[in-house]
């Protein structure tokens, strides 16, 4: 029975580790300036935990094998050094790993969430609601119109609750259902929710942030590759949660200008 346990654990361990190592299912290529920091952190953690995973499981398997195989007359053996090597190993190995990961990781985290966006960033206002995202561009005047929740009228496509009749800054605001951004240009988003909690998640951008009803949450990124990506909701928001998606289109600068013009005239 000991041999069987050891064999099963070993097989499970090696197969799992292999699948992780071979990236059979893995992150999509990152398209963000700050994404490589996250990927490096992930790979470092994967390597460290991978080693600990294999070592611990194989150690367990080995000891169980030897224990099950034991001659009943063989004397029991205490682990050399008793509990002290265990404590030492945990503190040194795990502690060191923790220290490194925290120090490096906190810098990565800070670079994404604790640094202000570039002053010249393209500003886009994002509204999440049951069960769609809408994106607002400031238009030629560079200013966003005020939002009044009571004015929201989805039937008439006034998703943000703008008042162009009385609010001049709102007149040229461009509202779209796609997040269109120019490549290699810093983008600053302001996230707000129309109703309940939602979240902003674009795997390729390595970016995720909850929308919090009642407050406006800023995030920023710079996309490095053109293409069409998906923005999905990761905060349970009701029955349509699984269906709540928008496309992110990263296009060249001229394409972006063209897109803005096309939408402005609508």
């Amino acid at each position, binding site marked *: *029975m000991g041999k*069987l*346990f050891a064999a*099963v654990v070993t097989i*499970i361990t090696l197969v*799992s580790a292999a699948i992780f190592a071979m990236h059979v*299912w*893995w992150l*999509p290529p990152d398209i963000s300036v700050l994404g490589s920091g996250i990927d490096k952190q*992930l790979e470092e*953690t994967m390597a*460290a*935990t991978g080693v600990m*995973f294999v070592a611990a499981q194989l150690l367990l398997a080995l000891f*169980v094998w030897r*224990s*099950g195989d*034991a001659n009943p007359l063989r004397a*029991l*053996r*205490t*682990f050399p050094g008793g*509990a002290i090597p*265990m*404590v030492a*190993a*945990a*503190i040194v190995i*795990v*502690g060191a790993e923790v220290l490194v990961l*925290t120090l490096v*990781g*906190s810098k990565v*985290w*800070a670079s994404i*969430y604790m640094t202000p966006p570039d002053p010249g960033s393209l500003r886009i206002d994002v509204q999440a*609601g*049951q069960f769609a995202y809408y994106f607002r561009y400031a238009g030629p005047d560079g200013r966003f119109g005020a939002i009044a*929740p*009571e004015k*929201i009228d*989805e039937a008439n496509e006034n998703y943000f609750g703008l008042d162009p009749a009385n609010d001049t800054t709102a007149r040229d605001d461009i509202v779209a259902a796609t997040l269109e951004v120019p490549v290699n240009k810093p983008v600053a988003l302001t996230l707000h929710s*129309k*109703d*309940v*909690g939602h979240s902003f*998640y674009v795997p390729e951008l*390595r970016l*995720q942030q909850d929308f*919090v*009803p*009642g407050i406006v*949450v800023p995030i920023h990124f710079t996309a490095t590759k053109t293409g069409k990506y998906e923005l999905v909701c*990761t*905060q*349970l928001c*009701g029955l349509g*949660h699984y*269906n709540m*998606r928008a496309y992110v289109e990263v296009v060249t600068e001229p394409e972006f200008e063209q897109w803005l013009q096309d939408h402005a005239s609508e």
Partner: protein
Amino acid sequence: MSDAVVRPDLDGAAHRDRHAADAAHHGPPTGFWRRHVFSLDHKVIGRQYLDLALVAVTTGMILSWLMRIHLAWPAQAIPGLDKLSPNGAANGVISPEYYLSLMTMHGTIMVFFVLTTAPFAGFGNFILPIQVGAEDMAFPRFNMMSFWVTALAFVVLLASFFVADGPAISGWTAYAPLSAVGKDAGPGLALGQTLWAVSIAIFCVGQLLGSLNFIATTLDLRTKGMTLARLPYSTWAWFITSVIGLIAFSVLLPACILLILDRVAGTSFFIPGGLVLSDRLQPHSGGSPILWQHLFWFFGHPEVYIAILPGFGIVSTILPAMTRKPLLGPRVFIGCLVAIGFLSYMVWGHHMFLSGMNPLSATLFSVPTLIITIPATVTTLLWIGTIYGSRLRFTTASLFCLGFVSVFVSGGLSGFFLAQPSIDTYLHGTYFVVGHFHFVMGVASMFGIFAGTYFWFPKMYGRMMNETLGRWHFWLSFVGVYCIFMPMHWLGLAGNVRRYAAFTDDYMKPMVPLHRFITVAALFTGAVQLLFFINLFWSRRRGAIAPENPWEATSLEWTTASPPVHDNFGGRHPVVHHGPNEYGVAGALGRDYVMQDSPESLPVRA
């Protein structure tokens, strides 16, 4: 205290009179209701809790099968479901909101009514008083109340399946404002959601009454010679769990009360202004959704340690008995339990890295989150070190302990990723998280429950469980759970979002085959649990008669009859001379162990 003033003339007579009066008052109960329903006997209450958990885990497991079938084949009509739930599954196909209800109820039932109930309230109630040498818990009436309050909470929760608008859909985490605004937010958010909050509030009361008993019994009812240092490790684990639970549930109860008020009384604790739902501007304003998250997770993180620490204690009790070796580093082990309990209160923000709270808090919370891995690593290494150089007896109980160690390693290590905010940025809300917590809670904690069952069943029911069935149960479950939950990590790495009723997004469609694999594994592993059920019910009636100490273990429960008599020790008061760790020694009568109440002096270790 002035109560300790001695009354020399009265004491002797009064003590004898009192004892006689008590014996008459609290002797074995008669009558059906007192014996089987409203029993004050901790052993009956413990079994009642375990039976409740059994019903709960069956319900929760069936819910998970429905979920998994729907994820693998979203358009599949499930026969009979349209009768059970005409609103949620018209034509037998699970609607998106019904999927979310199944998910919410699955999580709620499993976390509260299985993982908090079985290892702690179930086994703890039955075993702890005997292990400390007491005749019962400190407050038997509160103990009885705690079970029935918990049972009431379960009934209230199940009632929500039958309300018109469906059971709650906001997940077991019930984030506001979705959980707070009411029916404008969609189906499943009307009466069902309120019943959820009421059920959990009632559950908190039951748990607090339970913690009260565990703490008072451990501190005040220990028999002569049972110092804290000589307590069995399972008792230590239950004791620390009850302290953690005391603080945690004391915070969840206020949170639920405030949520209920937001839902029914028009207050705005968690609901900000300006929300438009179903084209209606909601009449609330000024509340904070993040406040709910803080209150909930302040409870929620310690809760997961409540779910696992009894398992730590159970494994540390069973392994020495099965390896015939003392637990390695027992004082270090207890120190780790205390450290984990203490640190568990400092890490709750790691569930909230992306919640909109100050990003600096994320960094601050990640530090103790990573540090808590150290005592957890130490305990794992202590178990592995105990197995080293041993002569393991491969019983079902010990197999589940070995399985516990393996899955705890797997689940614990995936926590390393989520503990770091920078990586959580990518993995939050994906199946990586689902895989992680199922490994540590859904598997490790469950394996602890299984190990405890196979170990203590002889004591509780006076019969042995069938070892052949038990071994098949273990092997098939062990392989099965790895097939279910390891792939979830791969799904998460690919960005597969959780809590989705279907995977319609372009990048998730290619992952459906892996989901189908998981579903098949889940249904298979679920079916395997039949072996456990059969074993449980068959053995209660037909199992081999169990001796007093079938495992040759050292703690006091193994000095009582199987099952123990009403007052556990038959009127005698055990006197403890040793700790619980005396295995592998040259004991009297040719034994390789020394029981805790054995008067023999400690021999030199073999």
